[in-house]
């Protein structure tokens, strides 16, 4: 019983026909989807703005002026008007992109890794470990996200770092739940049995057989969470639990401009519009990704 005669003398591995593969097909499908491309462009522009913000701003976002308070849109030198302290709205909105996106995306990225790991482990091992993890997760899951975020932030105190931690804590159970459910489905497929029969350990199987099948759905779900995170982060700032003045952040700007809603409604609504555009873009992107990943012949 010897397969060594099968082993090649030729050292070079011959080229083979390659299929695009799953991710290749998903990529092709996204590239053919105009809506997905449009929102991806919006998101890329926002990201570029976040990176280049400090160098791209036309004016000074921090200079206050009691004489130039609450100018309307289209004022000479202030294309988007000024806020309640007379600062340039355009510059503040552009610079605010950085902090707002950071506050929106960072907790979700953390939650993706932490929640994903927890969920995959719970899903793959099952049994009492699954029960223990998932019941704990359920406790957090039982509260509304907003309430939970406020409670954590309130307990930890105001500030960007504490807001990030509390938002991460809000999203970890949600990601864990999705990760657990897709992993449980994958775990029961025969190819996992076959991998176990090959003598592979749990870690190897998770890395080479499970992750490829579960990362897609988890990623799509987390992308959808970015919009929620944006809104929650803005909410925390609005309540004074997140970013502290004078840093420009859309949620905080919305809060401070709220008193001016009757005198300058359009200017006051601008930060809200930014939050809306950004979160809807992430939401639509997640939706189109989901569609691109689910289509299978």
């Amino acid at each position, binding site marked *: 019983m010897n397969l060594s005669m099968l082993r090649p003398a030729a050292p070079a*591995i011959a080229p083979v026909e390659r299929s695009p593969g799953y991710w290749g097909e998903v990529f092709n499908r996204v590239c053919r989807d105009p809506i997905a491309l449009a929102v991806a462009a919006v998101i890329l522009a926002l990201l570029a703005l976040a990176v280049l913000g400090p160098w791209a701003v036309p004016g000074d976002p921090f200079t206050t002026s009691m004489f130039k308070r609450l100018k309307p849109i289209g004022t000479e030198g202030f294309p988007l008007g000024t806020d309640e302290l007379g600062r340039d709205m355009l510059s503040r909105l552009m610079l605010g992109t950085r902090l707002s996106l950071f506050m929106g995306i960072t907790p979700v990225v953390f939650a993706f890794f932490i929640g994903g790991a927890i969920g995959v482990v719970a899903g793959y091992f099952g049994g009492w470990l699954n029960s223990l993890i998932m019941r704990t997760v359920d406790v957090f899951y039982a509260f509304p996200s907003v309430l939970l975020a406020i409670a954590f932030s309130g307990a930890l105190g105001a500030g960007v770092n504490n807001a990030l931690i509390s938002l991460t804590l809000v999203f970890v159970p949600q990601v864990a739940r999705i990760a657990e459910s897709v992993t449980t489905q994958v775990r029961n497929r025969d*190819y996992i049995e076959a991998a176990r029969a*090959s003598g592979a350990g749990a870690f190897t199987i998770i890395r080479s057989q499970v992750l490829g099948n579960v990362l897609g759905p988890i990623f799509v779900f987390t992308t959808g969470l970015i919009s929620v995170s944006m809104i929650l982060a803005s909410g925390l700032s609005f309540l004074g639990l997140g970013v502290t003045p004078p840093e420009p952040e859309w949620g905080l700007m919305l809060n401070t401009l709220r008193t001016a809603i009757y005198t300058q409604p359009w200017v006051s609504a601008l930060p809200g519009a930014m939050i809306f555009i950004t979160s809807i873009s992430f939401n639509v992107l997640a939706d189109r990704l989901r569609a691109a990943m689910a289509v299978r*012949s």
Partner: protein
Amino acid sequence: MTQRDIGGPAQPLLRVEKLLKHFPTKGGLGKRRVVRAVDGIDFVVRKGETLGVVGESGCGKSTTARLLMQLIQQDSGELVFDAMAVGGHQLPLREYRRQVQMVFQDSYSSLNPRLTMEQAVAFGPSVHGVSQREALQRARDLLGRVGLEPTRFAGRYAHELSGGQRQRVNIARALAVEPRLVILDEAVSALDKSVEAQVLNLLLDLKASLQLTYVFISHDLHVVRYLSDRIMVMYLGEIVEVGPTQALFSAAQHPYTQALLTSMPSMDPGNRTRVSPLSGDPPSPIDPPPGCRFHTRCPHAEAVCAQAAPQLTTTGDHHYAACLMVQPGAGHSQSPPAGLIYTGASA
């Protein structure tokens, strides 16, 4: 590779002793009941043979396969592979799984949709420390060996292949770690007939050229007969008969085996089956009948069959059946008298 045959040709490749697996039934309040999926079975797999395992749904053949592969842990009982206890220090589980491999029924579900065919086949060897490059090369050689042109198929994904092609990949994957025993669990059952023939021929070729031993599990007696040297018949978690294929087909001893054989459609329009050999369905392996488990459907059942559980009794060369009618002094009106034991050739 070193010579791996340890005990010589007479030593059974796999000895299964008192293997038992019960599953608790899920859900519901009140009394917990167990499914007696495999209820204490003993058998051997000889070196170089094909052992066919047949039986109906609920007979425990698939659970047996998963126990043999150690995908599930038995409640009690032991597996001895070439005189080494499986899971012991001589043969740890990881090493055992190089020696034994399995091909599943569902060719689609048993291939990872995100891996190319060469990656799927190369996984096993790379787990056992073969370098990635060598593992991929071995995978391509094996793909060629199971009849799939490597340059065309190595880079493909499971959904791009037909059922027969996928099952060939599964066979290649099983062979990639150079096993000595391959468990085929309904491996051709889902294939179209014209494709099934190709895969059966392939299995025969591979067995001859790689000196493999097969445990071939199927509900299809035609195919089992074609492939097997010996056949083991299971009913509700127990072995009711085991013997050489020829003897089993020409002189089945257990009424259940006889019924299975007469249930095979005749392929002769002038001689259609008129009376069904059995009525009703196989009972559930939850709370199986006491005594002989087949007595509820057996045309020869007597009162004693509901009380005494028959033992596997030798009835011919290497031929055993678990029926009171062949068990000396068992109390059935057709039992041979006590003390009368078959004395042909020794087993």
